[in-house]
């Protein structure tokens, strides 16, 4: 099992190639989101879209939230799948919102192709992260013979009872259990 974990990692690094790709997609998400929030009209023009500025702004907010979640999470896999879902929404929006002039149709086709390529990258990343996680799942180990006491548990109980607790760590007399404070053990 451990060898499977090893194969998913880059040699000498704690991050696997998919971990690093996920972080890259996180930064990409935030950059794209900011662009969509700040310049939705330019995005619409570049993608050959009708006036869909409010929709593009909404998608921008989604991209930023997803990017922050990817970068801030210990487990980016669910958030990469969120990106895949977002990609599908993007493709549907871009394909449906095309202007009916030839120049726009050309730009639109390019935009759809770009989105499809990004979707493939997201899919590859999410699948890779999921596979690594599945591979790391393991049968529960049983450490029930590891007491740490070479002479056995019974001999260990209270073996250090004669240890003198330093004065600065002793419980004040009035807060000690009555049976102990009164010497009635």
């Amino acid at each position: 099992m451990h060898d499977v974990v090893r194969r998913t990692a880059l040699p000498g690094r704690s991050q696997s190639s998919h971990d690093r790709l996920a972080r890259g997609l996180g930064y990409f998400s935030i950059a794209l989101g900011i662009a969509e929030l700040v310049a939705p009209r330019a995005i619409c023009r570049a993608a050959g879209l009708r006036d869909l500025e409010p929709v593009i702004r909404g998608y921008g907010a989604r991209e930023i939230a997803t990017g922050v979640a990817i970068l801030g999470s210990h487990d980016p896999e669910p958030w990469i799948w969120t990106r895949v879902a977002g990609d599908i929404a993007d493709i549907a929006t871009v394909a449906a919102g095309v202007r009916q002039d030839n120049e726009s149709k050309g730009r639109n086709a390019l935009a759809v192709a770009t989105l499809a390529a990004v979707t493939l990258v997201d899919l590859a990343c999410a699948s890779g992260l999921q596979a690594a996680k599945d591979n790391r799942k393991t049968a529960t180990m049983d450490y029930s013979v590891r007491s740490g006491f070479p002479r056995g548990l019974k001999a260990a109980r209270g073996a250090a009872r004669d240890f003198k607790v330093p004065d600065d760590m002793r419980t004040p007399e009035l807060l000690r259990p009555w049976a102990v404070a009164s010497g009635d053990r």
Partner: protein
Amino acid sequence: MKALVWHGTTDIRCESVPDPRIEQERDAIIKVTSCAICGSDLHLYDHFMPGMKSGDVMGHETMGEVVEVGPAARKSLKVGDRVVIPFTIICGECEQCRRGNFSVCETTNRNKDLADKAFGHTTAGLFGYTHLTGGYPGGQAEYLRVPFADTTHIKVPDGIPDEKLLFLSDIFPTGWQAAVQCDVQPTDTVAIWGCGPVGQMTIRSAVLLGAKQVIAIDRLPERLSMAKAGGAITINFEEESVVERLNELTGGKGPEKCIDAVGLEAHATGSVDAMYDRAKQAMMLETDRPHVLREMMYVCRPAGVLSIPGVYGGLLDKIPLGAVMNKGLTIRTGQTHVNRWTDDLLNRVLENQIDPSFVITHTEPLESGPEMYKTFRDKQDGCIKVVLKPGMNGGLHA
């Protein structure tokens, strides 16, 4: 030399870095034979602890052989000595060191101004940790420079495996201090949150110190199995209510002594406060997730003691201080005063009272360290404690 180097969140790399050299008269250089990944290293790995810089060498659980000694350290060390290096760097001369409060040594933090600003007053310099504690290169490396080496070491005898001695550097004295500062009485129930390496050592310490019953709380079956082997009654917090079970085991009165061996990255399934902490942490409105602290304060018996060896880094929300005040609880916490305990603990190891190597589940070459950080953090492969060996070929797993 090769070393494990921090480059950012979850980014540890095994790289070549310059060999350490004697910089001060009290320095020594040791050739590392064994080092370990500590739970508090994970706070750096996940970047919850501020003050890390790209290029920092990790590691504060280290032992090895002295290969070079500065002139002022020769009175207590010589080349060839076998030493365990405590994670706290101590001068042995300041007021706090003289009182045995080694983890708050007033001298060794070379970034004292930074620590004064962050904590009000400086604490000791630490190996392989944040720059708030000096930013000293750590011991997950082939060689380690030990500042103040004449006092910052634990001499250990030959003929005993590293695995039995290595944890004198941190987790064994940390678990011991956690239990000792509870002032365990024969009538006490000691409840310990977290069955990671420190939790396991705390369980053994509470058993040795003679607690009436020791209760261990975690969610991972393999860790609970190890806790049970050490003499603890176990509670799986994913399967039962911790508060209800603790009250049931103590006749409704709660445990007298509660120990937090979890710290700032508490994992609590489904609790409202845990979700609150996650959300606030994600929005950078809270640095730590103190679910365990809240639960301890709530369930502890009045006039009881809360011991906190778990590491916290910054600002925490919704702490029920009303419960602490009204129940008259005592809180004892702090980084471990390692050298205060190690003579006694070394004797206990030599007398076979305890063998700390029970906790090791993975032994790997140093080069595998980066992957092992991930395995340890994600608690995969039954991982509880990782030991790394420079120069080792292949790996050993539980």
